[in-house]
């Protein structure tokens, strides 16, 4: 039995606290090289991670850095600093604690490198920056422990891969470094443990008591949800009642646009003027911080939010979580519900609000998955090579390196354990010369090999550029939105540049819960005025769109096999029964396709259940094939479960459309020129260090500030189709926005079995698709025609077409 140092023990006793069993277990395993703790929110997880550090530092004999704490959120680092300082100061422990993020002033950052604190709280990006300095060895001398918080979130992104490569570097500098990961509930703890461990060392998994099962239900409303859409406006009165009946409610949405619309509707119904806030990633940082602070002080009764509050500090008084819209992913739902776990050992309370009729089915399936503790997750592929390229460049910034040693280091990170030497060398080659089939840069290599065989930057000044472009977070091209004033008005948030480009003066849109009027675009800032009266015409700024997980899709298909659905509300059960009567319900083992005429067009509905992104890709690929076959497709729309295509000709034999080989060729050929692929390429090219991020300063002079990644992509495809970055782009296309992996999964599942139902009119299950937003016209010849029409119209309107030219 490991005991706390007396001072700490007394402090706990004085507070009347006892140590949780998992905190004690962490103390006992303090010597282990790697430990993963999985504990629910509110379980004192962070304290469990830090207790061994406090115990080891209590005698004041340690010099230099002892523990590195890494969290995905800057705010979390700052918050932990406050929370840790309380016991340290009250007990009078001789421990220095400091945080370091992108917001830390340069002077303090310099001081931290020269004279590091005992405990440094930071983010993956700030850590990568620290190891890029030649004095990293001195900074990290004496480091004993690293605590990775919210590792379940990091492990799902390239930020986590970058972090693990940085830890591999640290392990070389500090061979006795011990690793601790803190995680929320996950589907596969073993995978996270392997991800965290210094390969091939083991990593022990500690499971804390998960506490009582959550109290989770579907919200019952008088009005049935609508057939389509995602606003859930019908539920506003019922949600308002729930807010009134609870102390503090957190209301999650899947997209920022939906959060904005919901907030507006809720505000219109807020007759008692309850304090309600909104929080999402497009809002200005100061606005978000104000909402967070008000939340901590317990001043807000509800906060409308998106994934922006999936992680972060625990709000004390949170007693209800509402998820609006289908949860899409059971694991994330469980983690969100956990946010309401305000007291350890009290059940969290959560409500699901389906936004449309189909989501009722999905919510039901999700409730059952939560009850069965059947969490979804797809194993991540091998460590992404664009991140590795950046790591090689970062390593070079720190000084000359030996390729063999670096390869050994990199493969000690779990995600890169299976990396071959050839793959590593290709990445090194890319960093050095670009790795082109045409060897053009032998004179101007970025990295060059010295006489002693080690690699170094040819031009040491390149280090500053590499550091400036460090990190793996992909921002879309965002531009700020400000209130128009004489001297720079209040910042409201950000919108995507593509959205801003569609605005004309007088257009109104929602941001931060207010309706604003677009006035002008000045120096890459959207200037707006308040315009409360008018109904907003446009409200889109695309955040992440999650696709329904494979596991949840399978559960829905399972549910369809039932004879009846007593667990579903009557309106939904009757809808499914009607579908079975006039057509049939989709099944897992075959692909249901319906064809029917509607409003003079032939329609084809493909129930692939592959998730929104894959169904969208399927729409692109199928319409392309249909065009080739002379079936005259005109457009399509995709949801998480189906793609609906309309055109001039009826499809009577769908099998040739679903030839796996033809679909794969389609991906390689036509889709490769698609904007989504170009976006994936831009991401990979930015992370790998081929193109530089758009910095605000570089944007101002406009011309030639940045290279168009689209042109680089087209050039590579034409002249160097086997280039590393195209290979990485193809790998990315299996997941994310293209999600071709899900199409492959569907093809495997149906194994050539296709059922075509030729109907006389639209089926009950297909009807909601006609009401969906986001219809995609089939481009190609038609797109050019549209441009010509618009150009002609503009010429006519302006009278310029009558001028002699």
């Amino acid at each position, binding site marked *: 039995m490991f005991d706390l140092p007396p001072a700490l023990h007394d402090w706990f006793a004085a507070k009347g606290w006892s140590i949780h069993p998992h905190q004690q277990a962490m103390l006992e395993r303090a010597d282990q090289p790697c430990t993963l703790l999985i504990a629910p929110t509110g379980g004192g997880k962070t304290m469990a991670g830090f207790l061994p550090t406090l115990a080891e530092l209590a005698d004041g004999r340690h010099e230099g850095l002892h523990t590195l704490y890494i969290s995905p959120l800057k705010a979390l680092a700052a918050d932990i600093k406050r929370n840790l300082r309380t016991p340290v100061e009250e007990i009078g422990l001789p421990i220095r604690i400091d945080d370091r993020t992108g917001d830390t002033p340069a002077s303090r950052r310099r001081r931290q490198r020269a004279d590091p604190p005992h405990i440094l709280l930071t983010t993956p990006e700030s850590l990568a920056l620290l190891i890029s300095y030649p004095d990293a060895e001195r900074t990290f001398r004496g480091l004993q422990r690293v605590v990775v918080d919210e590792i379940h979130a990091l492990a799902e992104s390239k930020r986590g891969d970058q972090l693990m490569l940085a830890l591999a570097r640290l392990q070389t500098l500090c061979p006795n470094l011990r690793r601790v990961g803190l995680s929320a509930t996950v589907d596969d703890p073993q995978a996270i443990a392997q991800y965290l461990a210094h390969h091939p060392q083991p990593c022990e998994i500690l499971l804390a008591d998960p506490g009582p099962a959550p109290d989770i239900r579907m919200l019952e409303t008088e009005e049935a949800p609508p057939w389509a859409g995602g606003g859930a406006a019908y539920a506003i009165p019922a949600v308002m009642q729930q807010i009134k009946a609870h102390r503090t409610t957190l209301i999650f949405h899947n997209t920022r646009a939906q959060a904005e619309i919901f907030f507006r509707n809720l505000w219109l119904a807020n007759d008692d003027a309850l304090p309600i806030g909104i929080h999402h990633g497009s809002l200005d940082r100061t606005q978000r911080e104000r909402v967070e602070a008000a939340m901590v002080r317990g001043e807000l009764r509800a906060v409308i939010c998106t994934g922006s509050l999936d992680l972060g500090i625990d709000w004390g008084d949170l007693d209800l979580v509402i998820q609006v819209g289908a949860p899409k992913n059971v694991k994330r739902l469980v983690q969100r519900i956990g946010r309401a776990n305000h007291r350890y050992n009290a059940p969290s309370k959560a409500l699901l609000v389906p936004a449309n009729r189909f989501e009722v089915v999905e919510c039901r399936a999700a409730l059952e998955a939560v009850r069965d503790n059947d969490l979804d997750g797809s194993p991540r592929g091998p460590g992404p090579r664009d991140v590795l390229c950046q790591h090689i460049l970062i390593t070079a910034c720190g000084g000359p390196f030996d390729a063999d040693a670096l390869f050994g280091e990199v493969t000690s990170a779990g995600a890169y354990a299976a990396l071959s030497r050839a793959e590593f060398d290709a990445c090194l080659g890319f960093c050095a010369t670009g790795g082109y089939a045409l060897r053009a840069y032998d004179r101007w290599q970025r990295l060059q090999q010295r006489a002693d065989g080690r690699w170094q930057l040819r031009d040491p000044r390149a280090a500053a550029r590499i550091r400036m472009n460090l990190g793996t977070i992909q921002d879309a091209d965002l531009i700020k939105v400000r209130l128009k004033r004489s001297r720079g008005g209040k910042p409201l948030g950000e919108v995507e540049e593509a959205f801003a480009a569609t605005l004309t003066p007088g257009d109104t849109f929602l941001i931060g819960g207010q309706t604003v009027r677009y006035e002008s675009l000045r120096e890459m800032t959207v200037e707006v005025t308040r315009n409360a009266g008018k109904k907003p015409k446009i409200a889109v700024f695309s955040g992440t769109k999650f696709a329904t997980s494979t596991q949840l899709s399978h559960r829905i298909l399972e549910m369809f096999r039932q004879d009846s659905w007593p667990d579903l509300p009557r309106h939904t059960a009757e809808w499914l029964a009607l579908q079975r009567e006039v057509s049939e319900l989709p099944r897992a083992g075959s692909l249901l396709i319906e064809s029917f005429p509607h409003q003079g067009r032939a329609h084809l509905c493909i129930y692939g259940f592959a998730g929104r992104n894959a169904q969208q890709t399927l729409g692109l690929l199928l319409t392309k094939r249909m065009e080739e076959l002379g079936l005259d497709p005109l457009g399509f729309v995709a949801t998480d479960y189906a793609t609906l295509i309309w055109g001039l000709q009826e499809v009577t034999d769908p099998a040739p459309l679903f030839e796996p080989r033809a679909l794969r060729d389609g991906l390689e050929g036509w889709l490769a020129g698609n904007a989504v692929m170009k976006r994936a390429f831009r991401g990979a090219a930015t992370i790998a260090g081929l193109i530089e991020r758009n910095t605000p300063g570089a944007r101002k002079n406009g011309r030639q500030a940045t290279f168009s990644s689209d042109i*680089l992509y087209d050039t590579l495809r034409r002249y160097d189709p086997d280039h590393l970055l195209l290979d990485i782009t193809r790998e990315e296309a299996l997941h994310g926005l293209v999600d071709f992996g899900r199409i492959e999964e569907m093809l495997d599942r149906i194994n050539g079995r296709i059922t075509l139902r030729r109907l006389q009119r639209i089926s009950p299950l297909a009807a909601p698709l006609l009401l969906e937003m986001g219809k995609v016209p089939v481009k190609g010849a038609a797109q050019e025609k549209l441009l010509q029409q618009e150009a002609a119209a503009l010429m006519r309107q302006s009278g*310029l077409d009558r001028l002699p030219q």
Partner: protein
Amino acid sequence: MTGYDFTLAGARLTALASGALWWADHRLLCVSDLHLGKSERHARCGGSPLPPYEGRDTLRRLETLVTALDPATVVCLGDSFDDDAAVRALPAEELDQLRSLMIRRRWIWIEGNHDPAPVAFGGETLAELACGPLTFRHIAAPAARAEVSGHYHPKARLRSAARPCFLLDRSRLILPAFGTYTGGLRSSAPALTALMAPDALAILTGPTALPVPMPR
């Protein structure tokens, strides 16, 4: 060749969808801002190693035009090379490609701000060229008339697609950049709105040449 026909100071010209200018009466082909050697200069100045294929791509597109039109005169309207060192570092294949294009025709290099020195491998190097009613120079002179220039790499947006474009009013024509790795300056930039008359056109390049009122 798809293009947009217009007259400037009495000269009947065609803005080709590919971004080049064709003057059929003189069998004169004009391209601007090739920026050959751009990727080499980028790497030399400490930038990342960009795909080194933009020279052959630019020349391939130029070759298509020259083969189709068989011009008597080709005018390169300045910034043909990214800098002097880029000229010297031009790969042998690209040099051969360029030389074969130059055979049997008058080839004029107009001096740009990137390439002030005369080119060593043939053609005439001029500060500007007067031909019929028109003057060809790299950077537009605000008071000039009947002028054809380049330099600004103009681009314009229609239905949220930004494309390189020609800018045209009664006094002048500005060509888009022809080089593969060349960014663009929005037609709404002050430098361009100050230069062009209020009724100016932007002629978008791409699959077809599309004239629209110049977006400001």
